């Protein structure tokens, strides 16, 4: 198959989506779970379903449901505690398979990737052939299925992979783009969320066809500079390249987040987790020799869906854990928490590479040497082998780490997860 892009150059893009990834890995791991409705939860104390198998979805189980809701919807539902290390390892190996077919692989998240196979077609005959080979290898090695979309650009390839699940293979030929999009609801397009959908609906725009025909000036008046982009999306135009990890450039932020073992509202416990996250962010920033000026704090509440994020920018660059902690705590103290906290996240951005420089004052030098000694021990024996006394397990055990959207198969963005 040869696909001709609507832009200036010819491209063939695959979008590959691992079906119900975490649940599928758990079913491959444990034969007793295969073919059964299962729900994956974040930790032993967690009560919210993070993902579920297709068997569970068919019976009405949804992400974000409390376990009791899931059990009420599907009494035979089996609850499985997730293991992020297993998922990140599997995702990395799957991305290695992708690189056998093209170096241009962009990981969109842990279970979704784009492949630009334009220059590989002469070797592997066709994009469909590549898709079948990838499907077979993933199934053989990991026992899991994926849905693949083939199209002239990333936007349409993602749309195509979403059209048939599980284990699908959907092709959008250039000649069929208009026909495919005409009646397609706008919410199906990657990048159009619930709020944007609402705004577009208020303009009487419900389908991609209507969005593509909408006057660009009208969209620009309403949405500013993204108005043009929205119209192009409605027309199925997307010239954005597949950016492989190696081409992404320097890391732009260092962040960690964790779902707590149970929802907490005790300020002392929240501060403790904040310190733990600060240490994780600080140690990783120091490992990569970067420091940053902007600290961002993210909080998700117990109801799973409400959250907030606030940030502050300092005058000087920091990467020591206690400095990150104090700044994050400063942000937290400006907010009155409405509910118990489910998830906490801290990120350090506005980064610069840090030159080695000894502090002038004795106390500062001691702090730096102590931090370096601590990092060195933790690099060798594992994270948190040596840490702040406050973080020695107390009332609450550590939370489970969240695999962030910025997850990449290797390199600095591949966070340590447990």
């Amino acid at each position, binding site marked *: 198959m040869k696909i001709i892009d609507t832009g200036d150059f010819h491209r063939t893009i695959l979008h590959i989506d691992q079906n119900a990834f975490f649940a599928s*890995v758990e079913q*491959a*791991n*444990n*034969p*007793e779970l295969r073919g059964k409705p299962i729900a994956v939860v974040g930790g032993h104390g967690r009560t919210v379903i993070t993902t579920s198998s297709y068997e569970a979805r068919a019976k009405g189980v949804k992400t974000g449901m409390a376990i009791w809701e899931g059990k009420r919807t599907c009494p035979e539902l089996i609850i499985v505690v997730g293991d992020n*290390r*297993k998922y990140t*390892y*599997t995702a990395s190996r799957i991305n290695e398979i992708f690189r056998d077919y093209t170096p241009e692989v962009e990981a969109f998240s842990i279970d979704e990737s784009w492949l630009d196979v334009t220059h590989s077609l002469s070797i592997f005959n066709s994009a469909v052939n590549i898709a079948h080979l990838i499907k077979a290898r993933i199934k053989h090695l*990991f026992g899991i299925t994926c849905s693949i979309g083939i199209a002239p650009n990333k936007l349409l390839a993602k749309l195509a992979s979403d059209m048939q699940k599980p284990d699908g293979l959907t092709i959008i030929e250039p000649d069929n783009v208009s026909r495919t999009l005409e009646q397609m609801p706008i919410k199906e397009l990657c990048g159009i969320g619930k709020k944007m959908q609402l705004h577009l609906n208020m303009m009487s725009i419900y389908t991609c066809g209507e969005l593509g025909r909408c006057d660009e000036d009208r969209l620009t008046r309403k949405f500013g500079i993204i108005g043009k982009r929205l119209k192009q999306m409605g027309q199925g135009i997307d010239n954005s390249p597949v950016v492989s990890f190696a081409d992404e450039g320097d890391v732009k932020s260092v962040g960690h987040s964790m779902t707590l073992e149970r929802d907490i509202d005790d300020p002392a416990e929240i501060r403790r987790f904040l310190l733990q996250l600060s240490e994780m962010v600080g140690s990783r920033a120091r490992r990569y020799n970067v420091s940053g000026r902007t600290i961002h704090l993210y909080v998700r509440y117990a109801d799973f869906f409400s959250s907030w994020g606030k940030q502050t920018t300092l005058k000087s660059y920091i990467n020591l854990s206690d400095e990150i902690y104090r700044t994050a705590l400063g942000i937290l103290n400006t907010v009155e928490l409405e509910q118990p906290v489910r998830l906490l996240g801290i990120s350090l951005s506005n980064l610069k590479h840090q030159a080695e420089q000894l502090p002038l004052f004795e106390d500062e030098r001691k702090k730096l040497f102590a931090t370096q000694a601590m990092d060195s021990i*933790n*690099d*060798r*024996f*594992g*994270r948190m*082998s040596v840490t702040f006394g406050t973080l020695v397990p107390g009332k609450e055990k550590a939370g489970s780490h969240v695999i962030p959207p910025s997850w990449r198969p290797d390199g600095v963005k591949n966070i*340590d997860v447990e």
Partner: protein
Amino acid sequence: MTKNPIRVAVVFGPGRTIRPVWFDLQNRKHSIIETTYTWTDLKGSARRLHFSVRDEGGLYELTYNTAEQTWELNRIEDY
């Protein structure tokens, strides 16, 4: 039960393949019918190899620490 040192019989095959064959648990030898999943991670600088294995009665997670050359039993799920 977590992180118990354990005695494991293993076949080191060509191509750096490692296949656990049996392990001892509470004075009983468990013959492994199938390795259902494998993955690796790092603990500090030590690479650990994880094996989900199945015998007649349950599913177990065995972990090999390549730096310390030790085996641990990390998880049991009875059928």
